[in-house]
């Protein structure tokens, strides 16, 4: 947030003085009622002081413009994701902001409310420190509609992100997306009927734990993409999630990278390093259980980013409960696995950076103790001459990543 905005926080709250103390739920410094005008709600959010809590009362709030939060240390709270519903279906005019709640203040928390039918993203935080999203529902009424907003929960460029106990469905890109951030925890969420359930993109040090991803086109992704200011996506600890039956339609706009995600994908690692995928239930995803790919410009688009590392290295997929994936593959998987049927649970494209010295095995993508899951070495970069299903070369271990959650 801009330092100058501190002045607003210091101004006497003649601003919020219309708040009736009797109407304030416990722990709330300001209350916004369903029949308050959206601009009154925005004014309360602007004039609330650092450290205060702004509460949305029970009811349905019909809003036709984005709410923005620029103040540091603000808590925004509803009465519960069923009780408090912010409905943005009327938000159809450009210039009013496309998102539900847009955050540029540090240490902001949004919790216990629903956001419905935003034109853009449900909640968005840009370049902030320690943002938390808790007990939120973000959804779109029309299923699998390309015109739905792109992202349910969208922190980008943040240091310190917590997304917990949220439910997101209907996003035309990704339900819970974390981009270009560090120190991220995504836990205990349910994501379904989005193009992608959860994506960790160009982000370092994250933990994705105990989430349920189902009925998306792709369950959980960790991507590292070129031509973005923050590079070096690595170290996602993706564990103890349920990634089941992600066989939804991919209804993303064709220009978006997630439009390449084959329907029926469980976990997809793209050009990202040193991730640990363990203890997950990965079942009934019709294209592939776990896929580790390099960024092939022919498949994903050309890039000119000299700092970009297109090879996934040092990933470790272990102790997952993997079953019944690859029964009816779609999209890219069909291209890559042309003659494999049924398609395997686990796969690596086999592309390796010739400039790396991997004599100690640190860059190997390892697979271990995944029950009787089958495996496919695509030999994508080697011209497919040596495709095989032998796991010997990739049966190895790396050091486990530390858990980030307390």
């Amino acid at each position, binding site marked *: *947030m*801009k330092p100058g905005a501190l002045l607003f926080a210091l*101004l006497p709250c*003649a601003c919020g003085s219309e708040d009736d103390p009797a109407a304030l739920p416990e722990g709330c410094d300001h209350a916004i009622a369903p029949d308050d005008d959206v601009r009154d709600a925005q*004014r309360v959010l602007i004039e609330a002081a650092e450290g205060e809590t702004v509460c949305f009362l029970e009811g349905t709030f019909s809003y036709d413009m984005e709410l923005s939060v620029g103040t540091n240390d603000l808590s925004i709270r509803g009465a519960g994701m069923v009780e408090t519903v912010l409905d943005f279906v009327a938000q159809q005019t450009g*210039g*009013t902001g496309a998102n539900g709640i847009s955050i540029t203040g540090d240490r902001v928390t949004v919790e216990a409310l629903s956001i419905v039918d935003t034109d853009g*993203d449900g909640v968005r935080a840009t370049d902030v420190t320690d943002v938390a999203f808790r007990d939120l529902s973000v959804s779109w009424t029309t299923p699998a509609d390309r015109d739905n907003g792109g992202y349910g929960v969208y922190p980008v460029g943040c240091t310190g992100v917590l997304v917990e106990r949220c439910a997101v469905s209907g996003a035309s890109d990704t339900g819970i997306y974390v981009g270009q951030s560090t120190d991220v925890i995504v836990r205990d969420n349910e994501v379904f009927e989005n193009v992608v359930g959860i994506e960790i993109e160009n982000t370092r040090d994250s933990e994705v734990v105990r989430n349920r991803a189902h009925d998306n086109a792709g369950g959980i992704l960790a991507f590292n993409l070129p031509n973005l200011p923050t590079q070096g996506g690595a170290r996602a600890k993706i564990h103890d999630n349920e990634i089941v039956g992600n066989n939804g339609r991919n209804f993303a706009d064709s*220009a978006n*990278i997630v439009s390449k995600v084959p329907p029926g994908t469980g976990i997809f690692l793209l050009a990202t390093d040193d991730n640990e995928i363990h203890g997950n239930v990965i079942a009934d995803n019709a294209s592939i259980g776990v896929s580790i790919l390099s960024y092939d410009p022919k498949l994903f688009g050309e890039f000119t980013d000299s700092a970009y590392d297109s090879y996934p290295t040092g990933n470790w997929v272990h102790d997952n409960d993997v079953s019944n994936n690859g029964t009816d593959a779609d999209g890219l998987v069909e291209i890559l696995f042309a003659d494999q049927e049924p398609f395997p649970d686990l796969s690596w494209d086999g592309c390796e950076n010739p400039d790396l010295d991997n004599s100690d095995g640190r860059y190997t993508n390892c697979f271990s103790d995944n029950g009787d899951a089958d495996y496919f070495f695509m030999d994508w970069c080697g011209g497919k001459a040596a495709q095989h299903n032998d796991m010997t070369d990739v049966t190895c271990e790396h050091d486990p990543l530390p858990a980030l959650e307390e």
Partner: protein
Amino acid sequence: MRWLALAIAGCGSEPPGRGTIPYETLSEYGFFEGRMADVAPADGVVPYEVAASLWADRLDKDRFLVLPEGETAAFDAAGDWTWPAGTIVIKHFSFEGRAIETRLLILEDLGWAAHVYLWDDAERQARRLVEGADVTVGDGQRYLVPNVNQCGGCHERDDAMHLLGPLTRQMNREVTRDGDVIGQLGWLAAQGVLGSDPTADGLPALADPFGDAEVELRARSYLDANCSHCHREGGGGGRSGLTLLASETDPVSYGVCKPPVAAGAGAGGRSHDIVPGLPDESIVTYRMASTDPEIKMPELPNLLSDAAGVALIEEWIAGMTPQGCP
């Protein structure tokens, strides 16, 4: 400008709007002489003009600087100028001659603070408001006055508020003063805004997007003025990797054959920000022409697309040698 001994502080228990900045009404500042809506600058209020203006839904803008008496700004060719505490930058918006809103950026100890004043129907007074407004101008055109958070949507970068107009590349142009066409930088020095005249060959300068410079310079100037406050490193759109500063020299960084990353529906099925020779296949023009909130660019706060701006960018892209984007 005696009143500029600014006692900048919270109101404490004082009633708001008496004796402290920001004032509740615009008239308290005493910026203008005569009928206030005519915005005739009082002594010490210095008008300035930019080379390339930000599209503002057909509204006209007048711009002024007010520096504390006896103080000057320190010039910087490429970066922000350094302004003395208490400097006020004024942008006044009118439609067909009627005063609509006036925005101030005031440099306080902690940085620039934004304030918005909405004029009454009689054009006698403008009152401060923080929550923005949805008003009608002229013959029924809807117009959005931004809330003060939205000011940061353009002015905030790297956690600090920045000026967007009083920059060398925008100020380095000719202006007409007392009937003479003269360099604005020298004129600002003569007015005491700058300590000395920095005019020199090679200083950055944007072109008038609708003037007679060659099309690439006009197009890059337009994108700089309308987009680069976000689309640059540290800006709100910097995360996209698309950099629309006129000084950017890498074609991919300013969009040529650059695929979108998180455009959502904003891509409109098009594959690259700029496809040389093919404006109808370029995302940049698609988003500029849209008024759908999820698609349109800039995101805030315009309701109308700038048809002349879209035409300019289309002309520029159409004139590029088709190369195909891989």
